[in-house]
């Protein structure tokens, strides 16, 4: 078993072997955890938010959701979830999108895409390999007219979710450093990863 704490704002990655589980614990509550998945043996096959949404007929991720690849294959399954709803529409924050959302004075701030690029480079992944990701513990409702919100999280201290790898899966994590919206309660905090073979 591997247990590691990911500090606030930091990246993390690991290969989760087929059949193993990864538990992600929101230690202090309201912490968005940005998450990408790849077939560990062929990273051209990677997580696809749209294939996942289309296959389950629902935009929210929760227990039972199968996280599918761009080829429609299962990469991981959510086997338990104490929160009830996670986002896979909103993507990752970046320095560039921060300039749009919050203004050019935020361009210097750290962002999830910077974490993904740095951590992905360790595995030979580059910018072309970044696609729409999962935001664990982030609550993005869609209103009837299509309006999106990033509203106060529905997570709380100590809540967790558990993923089972269906194939050997490389996971990239950015413990979201965003400080301009409520996705991290305006205060990024550490999360804990527990990998059980």
């Amino acid at each position, binding site marked *: 078993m591997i247990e590691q704490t990911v500090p606030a704002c930091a990246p993390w990655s690991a290969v989760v072997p087929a059949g193993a589980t990864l538990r992600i614990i929101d230690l202090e509550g309201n912490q968005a955890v940005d998450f990408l998945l790849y077939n560990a043996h062929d990273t051209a096959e990677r997580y696809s938010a*749209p294939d996942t949404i289309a296959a389950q007929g629902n935009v929210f991720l929760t227990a039972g959701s199968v996280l599918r690849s761009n080829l429609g294959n299962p990469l991981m399954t959510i086997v338990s979830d104490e929160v009830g709803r996670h986002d896979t529409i909103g993507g990752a924050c*970046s320095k560039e999108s921060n300039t749009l959302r919050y203004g050019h004075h935020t361009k210097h701030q750290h962002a999830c*895409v910077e974490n993904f690029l740095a951590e992905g480079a360790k595995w030979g992944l580059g*910018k072309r390999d970044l696609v729409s990701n999962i935001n664990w513990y982030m609550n993005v409702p869609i209103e009837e007219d299509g309006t999106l919100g990033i509203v106060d999280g529905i997570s709380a201290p100590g809540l967790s979710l558990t993923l089972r790898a269906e194939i050997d899966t490389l996971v990239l994590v950015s413990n979201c450093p965003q400080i301009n919206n409520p996705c991290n309660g305006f205060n990024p905090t550490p999360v804990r990863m527990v990998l059980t073979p």
Partner: protein
Amino acid sequence: MPTLPASSWPEPPQGVSPAELTWAEVVAPGGATSKVLSRGTSLRLRDLHGQACAHLLLYNADQPWERLNVADTVKIPWQAYLGVGHPLLSDQGRVLASIVADDSGRHDALCGGGAPARARFVNVAAKHGLEPRDLPPSVSLFQGVRVQHDGSLAWLGSAGAGCAVTLRCELPLVVLLADVQHPVDPRPEPEVTALEVLAWRGRATQPEDALWTATPELQRAFENTTDYWEART
């Protein structure tokens, strides 16, 4: 099939002279096509018979690792449903294209294209030197999907024959198009119909245009786009 030269297309849009046309093509049902378009080009897609589904990917033609980012496209305007005034954003905080006209209103930015669109994108992308890992999530036009309160998807389908969407290219673009069934279309064997593609020269959105200042987010996106373009030209 394409019409060459495009200026010989028999029905230019009102106010467009034949000489300004740069792309005229009817994509057969199940087909795909692509083109490199200059900044400022208007691109009109028309669902001729009411059952087209135009799956679309956009790349900065000068650096195709900058490409359509569907997440930023819905997140920055806080709007999941595409319509007039919606920017199609890249991952670099810039506008690749703006939606300047739309009489369908039934589109989708959440479900991607599924295996049929992917198969066609793999091939048309290859003709621009792009590989499967250059294919991000795509958007689709003319077949609507709506999200219900519990997150489940509801099928809206087509708004009818003749609907058109016009995009304005804000950067030089590689445009990839595939006309195949939508991945959550509940009908067992829907008859996909032809897609008309027409493009003509024009100018990119300017500070004096109403769209430029429509929202603070949009204004900053246009400022980022122009900043990039002026530095490189």
